[in-house]
């Protein structure tokens, strides 16, 4: 038999009395001031789960409660008496033994790392690939109209030039085996912004400023192939999945870290999202460069349009400002901050392909 000293409260009442709960494996007896107040089968008692060393609530059938902080004795008794509330104590056992804690630390770090670096990209890739092409075609039908209203101006490119470029677009597109996607090239203008971007539906927008920047049509081909890759590899949806997954995970891990400071949460979120984005850009670059080699367009043109982006100090394709400079030590830092890989690296990669092309 064990004796648990505690404070006893009648149902719903704050009036407390010092009490003693006597427990053996079958029956309990509750004493207040030495007098027996209640007794019965021990199985009718219910015990709150143990968390750390906070006081436990032991509830009686009549709704009264004994609060007792002798956690170890309670747990001992629960185990001996095989009380049904004992089954939850597994959580406390996990939480109180350092070998389980050590294992938890290793598993949490490992799982988070694996999930962030492999799991999220894999999951978003699978989901994006599983959706039928029809869904993508219907996605964002309103997006271009919205952009036209707020951001894009009409193209001032002469009709014959538009036709000529659309023709080239169809040609490079035909060679990419794009299955059943319906691609369409749109000409628009954004002041001072040589740019091109793709919508998940296969609508690709190129600005007059970009066409003016390019000295040769092969340079435009390079940019368009990069954008085609984003559509075919379904990067748009993947990015949505990435950012929702990261938000959920960081919130889960740090919980109400907002009470600490937003910095602790915002920084890892931002770093991870730019890391995924950089991977997508590299993927799209690889696709574009391979296609150029296959289609007999010298990848050197990819390098030359990149150089021009760099010179105008405007964002490369997709309208996100790359923070990269060609200062080496800073590039090292910026690699982790930038949404695009360093332009110089992209140029070098293109030149490698170019050598391959010439051989």
């Amino acid at each position, binding site marked *: 038999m064990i004796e648990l000293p505690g404070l006893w409260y009648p149902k*719903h009442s704050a009036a407390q009395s010092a009490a003693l709960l006597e427990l053996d494996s079958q029956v309990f007896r509750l004493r207040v001031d030495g007098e027996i107040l209640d007794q019965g089968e021990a199985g009718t008692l219910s015990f709150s*789960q143990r*968390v750390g060393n906070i006081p436990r609530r032991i509830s009686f059938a009549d709704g009264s409660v004994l609060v007792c902080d002798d956690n170890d004795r309670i747990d001992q008794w629960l185990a001996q008496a095989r009380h049904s509330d004992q089954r939850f104590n597994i959580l406390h056992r996990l939480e109180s033994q350092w070998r389980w804690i050590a294992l*938890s630390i290793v598993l*949490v770090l490992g799982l988070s790392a694996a999930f962030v670096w492999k799991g999220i990209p894999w999951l978003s890739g699978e989901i994006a690939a599983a959706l039928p092409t029809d869904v993508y075609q219907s996605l964002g039908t309103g997006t271009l109209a919205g952009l036209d209203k707020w951001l894009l101006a009409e193209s001032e490119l002469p009709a014959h030039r538009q036709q000529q470029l659309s023709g080239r677009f169809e040609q490079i597109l035909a060679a990419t085996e794009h299955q059943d996607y319906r691609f369409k090239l749109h000409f628009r203008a954004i002041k001072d912004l040589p740019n091109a971007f793709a919508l998940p539906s296969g609508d690709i927008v190129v600005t007059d400023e970009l066409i003016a920047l390019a000295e040769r049509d092969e340079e435009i081909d390079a940019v368009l192939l990069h954008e085609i890759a984003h559509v075919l590899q379904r990067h748009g949806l993947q990015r949505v999945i990435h950012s929702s997954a990261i938000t959920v995970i960081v919130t889960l*891990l740090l919980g109400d870290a907002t009470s600490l*400071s937003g910095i602790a949460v915002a920084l890892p979120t931002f770093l991870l999202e730019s890391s995924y984005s950089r991977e997508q850009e590299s993927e799209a670059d690889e696709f574009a460069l391979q296609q150029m080699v296959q289609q007999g367009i010298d990848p050197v043109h990819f390098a030359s349009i990149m150089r021009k982006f760099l010179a105008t100090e405007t964002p490369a394709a997709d309208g996100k400002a790359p923070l990269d400079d060609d200062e080496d030590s800073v590039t090292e830092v910026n690699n982790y901050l930038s949404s695009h890989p360093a332009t110089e690296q992209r140029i070098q990669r293109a030149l490698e392909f170019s050598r391959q092309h010439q051989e």
Partner: protein
Amino acid sequence: MAEAYNTNSSQFEFSGRGGEYFKIWIVNILLTLLTLGIYSAWATVRKRRYFYGNTSLDGNAFEYLATPWMILKGRLVAVAALIIYSLVSHFYPLAALALLLLLALAAPWIIWNSIRFNTRMSAYRNVRFSFYGKIGPVYFNILMLPLIPLLITAVLGFVLYFTGLVSEQKIALLTIPGILAFYLILPLVQARMAGYFINHAAFGQGKFTAEIGAGTYYTTYLKAFLITIGFLIAFVAIAALASMAGAISSMGNMQPGQMPQGPIVAIMILAYVLMVSIFIWIGAFVAVRIRNYLFDSTSLDRNFQLQSTMATAGLFKVYLTNTLIVILTLGLGFPWAAVRLARYKAEQTSAEVAGDLSGYVTQQQSYQSALGDELGDAFDLGMDIAL
């Protein structure tokens, strides 16, 4: 009674320990990961029970009584809504606007539900806290009040437009005072919501009361705003000086516009650290002023007066060291940070009681709703957001 005039001060105490909470926290995370987030409801309950159960007043600990199932229900609804919203907003921005409108309409209900839930799940000495506020004021304070300045500007704009007295461009300029007024009214919204919450909260039969005005909110935000502006100006000035110095020193052998890279990185990092510290300081300043004001205004049956003695410097020190702990340990130090914050808050909180605290509390009984707690819980979504 003579003894009613004696006031006793009772100090809140927090007895949690970082190492102990770390073990609970890491198991919470592991099981949450392994169950793909479902365990998070259990994790929340364990975390809350740990912090409530380790906070005590007059030797008696607080209790958190929610069950994980209540919280799980609320979370599932929230996650479903989040997924739908993020997909829709990405692909159909216009439809997402409609969803946002829907969310705006639901927000007061969610907030009300959350206040009610969290209050009712808290207990002290076997007696629950409760919240009996009606939903109407939440809609008024959160949806109507902030819209009033915008509505006035819109009406004014229409009138001016149709009378043709003023050109369209000048009417468009009206949006500036409109938006300004919107921001100016937010402290009032906050003050009214705080007053609404406190004045409809109860402990047993005891009712909390507080006269909350918006004055403290306005002076606090004004000061925080002025300090921010002051720092920003100082910042820009220093940056300008630094870049001038850089330009002069690099004139000889470097290309124009290029600076030595070592110093530039160091300056960037230093500037970032300084900025973050300033924001943390301002965060602490606002939190301290408002908390002290609210606590010092709050009493229970005019028998029991809360007191908060926080100081900006003290809270700033806790915030700053906590941020460092979390960053330097790659997040693993979070439990220590959370415990330090809870301990600081408890240390700075006390209650003045007329007469005997225990004597007063003893008279309280849990407020019984007509439906009974069990039925109430069944309909509860366990919505749980921090205000």
